[in-house]
């Protein structure tokens, strides 16, 4: 198991290295006149040259990449071009908002999706059809549209929850809950739709197996069969889809954070990317790919724990 984790970690690190290198070169090669953009049209040639030298942009690109990489390993993501702020400070203050949103969404969506998927597979009939229809609808409706709908109904018409704003979880848990209910609902819908479908399919597959029939012939209760024997073999699929959905959520969070005005990474991404603040964009990239790598590792470990068949070295 340890060697499995070590191998996966190494793989994840090399992936991040490749991603960061490609992004670094693409971003810098495609943006010319960074110093000019920062200083504005009125700046003189000398000022631009001085700024270029100050930012180290006159040196060869590979050297700058290696320097940046060494910085990353020491926790230094560089400095923003436009604000007098360290990139790591700017991002780390926003990270808890996004992470708490994503983790809460994943847990809630997982519980609902597994419950719906199992219920649909076990009871079939009208319940199954209902879950199928809702799944397709949930998958087809984009998260942001759903978010706007939620705001109109629950924040504006009913006035039950605030439409925008954010309270830290650590300062006021109840206030935090009020501000994140709608964003979580908007984000979970797609995850629930996709995951419930997969769980349903996997459970139906396992229920058709002869070993389940053998258990039935021995008079085991449906509950015992589902929770002791079926779920263990069926949940790998659900877990894998959930991992993929989590990665997709990182993208969804950008839009949803914008709609609910949550001070998370998504808002930062929109602000800084449009301004061409490359150090911040690179920082975002490293943090999100780290999150993705960790989630993938957790999913692999989870699947391996549930199902020894999938335990590959």
């Amino acid at each position, binding site marked *: 198991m340890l060697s499995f984790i070590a191998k996966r970690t190494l793989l994840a690190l090399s992936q991040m290295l490749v991603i960061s290198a490609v992004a670094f070169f693409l971003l810098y090669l495609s943006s010319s006149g960074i110093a000019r953009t920062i200083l504005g049209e009125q700046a003189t040639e000398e000022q631009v040259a001085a700024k270029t030298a100050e930012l180290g942009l006159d040196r060869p690109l590979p050297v700058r990449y290696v320097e940046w990489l060494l910085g990353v390993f020491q926790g230094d993501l560089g400095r923003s071009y436009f604000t007098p702020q360290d990139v790591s400070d700017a991002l780390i203050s926003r990270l808890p908002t996004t992470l708490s949103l994503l983790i809460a969404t994943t847990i809630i969506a997982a519980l609902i999706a597994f419950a719906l998927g199992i219920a649909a597979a076990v009871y079939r009939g009208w319940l199954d059809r209902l879950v199928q229809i809702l799944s397709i609808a949930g998958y087809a409706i984009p998260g942001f549209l759903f978010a706007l709908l939620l705001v109109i109904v629950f924040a504006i018409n009913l006035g039950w929850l605030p439409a925008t704003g954010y309270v830290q979880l650590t300062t006021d848990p109840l206030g935090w809950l009020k501000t994140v209910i709608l964003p979580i609902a908007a984000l979970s819908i797609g995850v629930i739709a996709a995951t419930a479908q997969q769980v349903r399919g996997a459970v139906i597959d396992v229920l058709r197996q002869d070993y389940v029939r053998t258990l*039935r012939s021995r*008079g085991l209760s449906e509950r015992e069969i589902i929770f002791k024997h079926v779920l263990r073999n069926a949940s790998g699929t659900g877990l894998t889809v959930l991992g993929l959905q989590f990665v997709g959520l990182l993208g969804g969070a950008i839009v949803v954070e914008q709609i609910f005005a949550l001070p998370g990474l998504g808002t930062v991404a929109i602000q800084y990317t449009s301004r061409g603040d490359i150090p911040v964009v690179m920082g975002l990239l490293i943090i999100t790919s780290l999150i993705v790598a960790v989630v993938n590792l957790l999913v692999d470990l989870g699947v391996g724990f549930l199902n020894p*068949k999938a335990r590959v070295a």
Partner: protein
Amino acid sequence: MSEQLLSVDKLGVDFTRRRTTFTALEEITFSIAEGETVGLVGESGSGKTTIGRSILGLVPPTRGTLTFRGEDITHASRAKRRELSRDMQVVFQDPYTSLNPSLTIEGILAEPLRAQGIDRREAGRRVKELLDRVRLPSDAAGRLPREFSGGQRQRVAIARALALRPRLIVCDEPVSALDLTTQQRVLDLFIEIQRDTGCAYLFVSHDLSVIRHVSHRVIVLNRGKIVESGGVEKVTSDPDDPYTQRLMMSAPLPDPGAQRERREELEKLRVDSERAA
């Protein structure tokens, strides 16, 4: 072959789907004695698997009664089934789906024992005994089903069926998924187990040579009805019913000359039966 272990009396099973009813079984009556093997033969869709499943409580009977050791089990409850499972077990056709892929062989074999409340130590001891019984090495216990071949898996399935020392094992095409030499060995294992433990088999198969090899008595099924039954010698060598005759003829012979003759004979039978109908 003294008293009757299982009696099936006028069993009928209907499948209803969206207001159309399909009668899968009708007026099925037969019995199995202690230590006896009854072969159930018929083509696909003849209802042989459905008989096995309704005895196991997997398909609810629509009509008729099932009596096991003098007790009516036609509509046995879950709790009753759990109790029954000590005496009645099953081996299914496909050795690839009949074992839980995430349990080790020991887990698979110990499961029925633990479900009956046998403690862990005792179960572990019994698992070793069972592996030995079906001629699998004792180090198989810690391995997963995927590490075994089809024949070996079927041995595990047989060992699981034997775990609780049942009186009756329903075998639903237990060798159809195996190649010929493996079939032979698994069939011999069935016979050997019966000789040692005295359990009875309801042996469902479409393959006559398999049925001939293991059965004492044979029941021939066609479209949900029993067309012929009797001793294995009589039914397989000198059948009375035209359907049985055709079924016997349809098994190919290795000698091409003999097979040609048989094919002509079969054709004649077919024409005769069409004329009669």
